């Protein structure tokens, strides 16, 4: 039987339908339209930390039927009643998103890649990659007219997930360790068995390229960005690190900085390039790599905008002893990223919580930094932004947890550039600290 239109189901729902009614009449139809048969859906699926999510679903593989084996869910659905306001500025929406995120990260749901919240008036799709959860659509209003189209677009997304998580490393303050972070994260993720592409998108500094001893591109990258039929991946240059074991090496790919981009002015580039060009050009890379890391320049000019547009999430290094690096992070979160989100139209990119990169922090210095951060958060609140979760992700109304991840810098981390080798391959402590960062932010 061909799935029927959602329209009649929607119009038959009473205006104030509670969760049970939405569940009964709407959710099974929705999941059917998303391509799941009744044996592929488990209601009240136990997440493994004592809670249950309204629906979990996975396609049948061979004779592994999800309803019976209950293993490896692919999609989680959190239902609300129509009496629960899920428009994106409502408090109930925030609560529902938090709930969904918690389910997605729970022990039994490690394999889940998608999460949906809906009350049949609104619907939003989230993607989970490792432990990173980011929106895959805006929070969309459903009505009789658009429902089928919206659901079809969601189905298209969940049937062709991109393999890669694209991360822009950005702070419009310079010298906070963007390049160091990008290089070492690329190196440690490679060490942990991931396929990684690093993109040096800071043509003025070119540090990522030169710190790995890779030759600069002589116009090739510019050409690939501006010409329709040249693949961006044709410009890549592998970075190889031989291991002691014979015949084995670590390898990640680098798209080097382009010399010719240095001279090009923003205006000239704007005539050749649209803001979405890097995102477009990375389409094939998104299926080939597990992680794409983009190193961006310390400003909010054209290159940064391309880099941020191309990203799913943005990693923001800051320095505890540099007020501007914290303030700039706040400005980017309040002003720059929402601009790009509005233009891109799928809810991404979202900023990840900040981390401290730099000199060892004494308790007194930490107290000063925390003071500054609470000022920043207070000021933002007056302007109508809630920055708390970007600075203190573990802080809740009942729990004043001020944890911020730290990477202490050593002479040997910065000095590794002289040997053209990422410091995580040379130095044990650096190796452990970046592994910790990778696990805390990205890996599940």
């Amino acid at each position, binding site marked *: 039987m061909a799935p029927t239109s959602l329209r009649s189901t929607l119009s038959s729902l009473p205006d104030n339908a509670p969760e049970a009614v939405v569940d009964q009449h709407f959710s099974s139809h929705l999941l059917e339209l998303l391509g799941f048969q009744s044996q592929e859906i488990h209601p009240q699926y136990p997440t493994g930390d004592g809670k249950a999510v309204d629906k979990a679903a996975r396609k049948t593989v061979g004779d592994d039927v999800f309803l019976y084996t209950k293993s490896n869910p692919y999609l989680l659905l959190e239902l609300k009643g129509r009496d629960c306001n899920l428009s994106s500025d409502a408090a109930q929406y925030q609560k529902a998103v938090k709930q969904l995120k918690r389910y997605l990260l729970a022990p039994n749901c490690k394999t889940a890649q998608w999460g949906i919240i809906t009350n049949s008036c609104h619907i939003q799709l989230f993607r989970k990659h490792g432990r990173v959860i980011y929106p895959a659509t805006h929070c969309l209003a459903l009505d009789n007219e658009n429902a089928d189209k919206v659901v079809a677009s969601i189905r298209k997304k969940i049937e062709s997930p991109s393999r890669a998580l694209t991360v822009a490393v950005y702070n419009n303050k310079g010298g906070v360790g963007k390049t160091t972070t990008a290089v070492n994260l690329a190196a440690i993720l490679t060490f942990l068995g991931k396929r990684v592409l690093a993109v040096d998108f800071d043509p003025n500094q070119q540090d990522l390229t030169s710190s790995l001893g890779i030759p600069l591109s002589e116009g090739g990258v510019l050409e690939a960005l501006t010409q329709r039929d040249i693949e961006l991946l044709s410009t890549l240059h592998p970075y190889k690190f031989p291991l002691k074991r014979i015949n084995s090496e670590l390898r990640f790919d680098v798209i080097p900085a382009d010399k010719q981009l240095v001279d090009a002015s923003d205006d000239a580039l704007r005539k050749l390039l649209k803001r979405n060009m890097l995102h477009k050009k990375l389409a094939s890379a998104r299926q080939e790599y597990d992680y794409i890391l983009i190193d961006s320049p310390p400003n909010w000019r054209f290159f940064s905008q391309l880099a941020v547009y191309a990203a799913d999430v943005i990693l923001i290094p800051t320095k505890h002893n540099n007020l501007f690096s914290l303030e700039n992070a706040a400005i980017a979160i309040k002003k720059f990223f929402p601009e790009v989100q509005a233009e891109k139209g799928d809810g991404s990119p979202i900023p990840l919580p900040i981390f401290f990169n730099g000199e060892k922090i004494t308790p007194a210095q930490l107290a000063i930094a925390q003071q500054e951060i609470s000022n920043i958060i207070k000021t933002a609140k007056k302007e109508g932004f809630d920055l708390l979760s970007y600075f203190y992700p573990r802080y809740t109304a009942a729990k004043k947890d001020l944890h911020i991840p730290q990477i202490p810098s050593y002479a040997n981390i910065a000095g590794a550039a002289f040997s053209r080798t990422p410091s995580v391959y040379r130095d044990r402590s650096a190796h*452990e*600290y970046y592994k*910790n960062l990778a*696990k805390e932010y990205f890996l599940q």
Partner: protein
Amino acid sequence: MSSLNDIGNLMHIYLDEIEPGEATDAPEFLIKASAHLLNQKGGRNWIPVIVKETGDDAYQVIGNSFIYAVAEEAGLDRVWCIIADGNSDTVEVVKVLAGEAIPKINLSKASRDEIMSALDYLINQPASPLKGVKLAIATNRIDEAPRQYWKTLDPITNLKCGITRGKKLEELKQIFYLVPEAMPDTITDIGILKTFSVTDLKAMAKKRGIVGISKMKKDDLLSVLSQSSD
């Protein structure tokens, strides 16, 4: 024993019917100053002492012993108490919730996040012997070790993460316990094998029917065990 109906009730009990149980280790200043405040501000202990019944009109403190000490210092005749049942699970929960005991986690199964927060807690205790242990490094090493098979916490001292035998390891015993899985006989991953003691390795080799074990050194054992099932 009187009826069990009192369990869960808030009761105003004579202080001399309550036995202190495990005494609080709160400093004298806190007890005296709190008692003074309590007397000044109405004399009602709004946060109750948690007691169990030990006989007719006889009770013993199992939680909030600080409040008991304050009430005693304040010279209260009667103190507000909640009656709990006396089984050991209840006592443990009460002590942990009252902040008088530290909850333990199962290191055999704990997630990386749990290990990290546990270590973070210990390292940041005042005057902790673990000062100087690098949280990120210790978490990585412990998380990656084959801890599901550990019978004791001793292998942590071989992980080179700054936690040595003695005071530092003793600290960890406060928060970690182990429920080890049975060791499979077929581990061939040299990285995991390396973390076992020679005694464990010999036992493993014996199970697999390898001969000449008694003369083998650790390296020999490792090379034999890592090949044997290929």
